[in-house]
């Protein structure tokens, strides 16, 4: 599946993942980069639903929290190791995702967003208040690390970073390859015109469900690693703010792209660091960025950089610029006048 078109970005991406810890050497920066990668997994998972399938879900914050809590409860209260909880977390996330998908099968547009908002809120409330199982506001700790660090000579934060680099690479590659299959093409056909897709014989319901299930499973996987990364979890990990953050990151980063989720994650990790001394302005800045992106760069940062790179490349090759070729995103295309 490596073609001439994607080999250069792939190598750049992998090199970046490998070399970043050499640029930012302090353990603190490496921890921030690790968090960035965990977010990027969640955002890549959500992008399968939002960017490729056009299913704008706000429930993924709750699914992320669900994955974190499955790992948290099974390691802290039941005594399992981290790796044996991971498949359970993915399975629970995927099954709940399937449930959400079944409930919202016929819903489109606003109705779908609001339904996922409601269902996500319900999951959050259950996690917050089912104290016998989740310990409520007290939270759960300590969630063990995936690797026992005595066995590896690297320092702990660097090991965790490279583990997350591998996991995020696998997730991104998996999502990329999935979108190259017939399922991916069917998804985009449904996103672009569901009635037409149904008319040419695509099983709209089934394809939507598959996409939502995979997307939910990936969100739960990210949550599972988040629990281990933080080692302490409490209900706010599943709050609807996480769901909105994920959605915002994808919109700002750019949908249905490989780089978009990473750019979005970078903004959500770097911005609080820049605004560390003025935290109360963080929310305003985020909101403003969001509004400006929606108004002026509907394809997100990845879309912007694609257009910029296209212009530079064409400058050298002498071809006319055609930014429209890149904007394949119907979510933000204009509606019909009717």
């Amino acid at each position, binding site marked *: 599946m490596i073609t001439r078109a994607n080999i250069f970005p792939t190598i750049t991406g992998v090199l970046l993942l490998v070399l970043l810890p050499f640029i930012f050497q302090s353990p603190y920066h490496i921890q921030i980069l690790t968090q960035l990668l965990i977010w990027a997994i969640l955002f890549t998972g959500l992008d399968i639903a*939002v960017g490729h399938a*056009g299913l*704008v879900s706000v429930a993924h914050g709750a699914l992320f929290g669900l994955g974190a809590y499955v790992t948290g409860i099974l390691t802290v209260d039941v005594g399992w190791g981290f790796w044996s909880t991971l498949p359970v977390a993915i399975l629970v996330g995927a099954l709940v995702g399937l449930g959400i998908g079944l*409930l*919202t*099968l*016929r*819903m*489109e*547009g*606003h*109705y779908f*967003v*609001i*339904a996922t*908002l*409601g*269902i996500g*809120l*319900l999951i959050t*409330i*259950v996690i917050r*208040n089912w104290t016998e199982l989740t310990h409520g506001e007290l939270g759960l700790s300590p969630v063990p690390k995936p690797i026992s660090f005595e066995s590896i000579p690297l320092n702990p934060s660097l090991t965790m970073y490279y583990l997350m680099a591998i996991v995020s690479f696998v997730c991104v590659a998996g999502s990329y390859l999935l979108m190259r299959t017939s399922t991916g093409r069917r998804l985009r056909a449904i996103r672009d015109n*569901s*009635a037409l897709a*149904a008319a040419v014989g*695509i*099983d*709209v*319901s089934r394809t939507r469900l598959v996409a939502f299930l995979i997307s939910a499973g990936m969100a739960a996987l990210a949550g599972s690693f988040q629990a281990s990364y933080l080692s302490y979890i409490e209900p706010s990990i599943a709050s*609807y703010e996480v769901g*909105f953050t994920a*959605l*915002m990151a994808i*919109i700002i980063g750019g949908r249905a792209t490989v780089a978009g989720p990473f750019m979005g994650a970078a903004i959500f990790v770097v911005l609080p660091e820049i605004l560390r001394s003025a935290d*109360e*302005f*963080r*929310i*305003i*800045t*985020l*909101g*403003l*960025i*969001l*509004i400006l992106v*929606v*108004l002026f760069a*509907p394809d997100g940062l990845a879309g912007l950089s694609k257009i910029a790179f296209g212009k530079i490349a064409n400058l050298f090759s002498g071809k006319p610029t055609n930014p429209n070729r890149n904007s394949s995103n*119907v*979510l*933000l*295309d*204009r*509606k019909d*006048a*009717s």
Partner: protein
Amino acid sequence: MAADIAQNIANALMAGSIYGLLAVSLALVFGVLEVPQFAFGAHAMLGAYSVAILASYGYWIPVAAAIVLMAILGVLVQALIFDPLRNAPPATLFIAAFGLLLVLQGMALVLFGPNNHSVAPAIAGGTTILGASITYQRMLVVAAAIIAVLGLNVFLRYTKTGRNIRAVGQSRTGSLVVGLSPRRVGLITMAIGSALAGLAGALLAPIAQVYPTMADTLVIKAFIIIVLAGMGSINGALLGGFIVGLCESFGSAYLSLEFKDAYPVALFILILLVRPQGLYGKVVRVA
């Protein structure tokens, strides 16, 4: 027992009228402009802050100020954000509204700080009806909400501007053909919706704490209500508000208080199981 039930109904009416009023503002803006104005929660919060900050002028002058200020804010956000996005698809509008919510909440945090404000009730004291003790402030909230929605009904039915708003809601293209300006009507609609949200917040201020994220779950409930009521149905939204109020009040009295916020959502999911398109939604078959 009877007194308990009466008390629960009284609580439900009070909470329901706030939910209903906010849902009505959302339903108006959604029905006419197809904008899911998620930020109306923040508009309500700013309405509540207006009452808290201007408390030295009594209660009614600040309430009026809240309505006027929020109407102006409505015009501003429509002109700057939602009018430029008038042809954008649902996801974009949702995100823009959420961005606005963040900006307004962030501004409230910077201007007023994270601490809770409380507002003294306009009328002290209360009475007992059928064994339910009800403060006058709560009766005032219910009355004001119902009067506001009745007023909106009269306005939409019997004034020229109101009829123009309904015309744009029915068909944007059609209203253009007969010489209306949908963009001007959009400004008026958003101003009225925003003013109603501000009123909901101003009414809520004396019976709740005022802080930047006070209306977050409120606005989610209001959205659930308008999906159930059929988006755009104004009187359905008020009725839906009362149903959600009842559901919460009896759920927390007889089931469990911790899950108070979960009952309306659970009801919503149950209804989705039976009618996936919502109570009044149109069935759109895509596959």
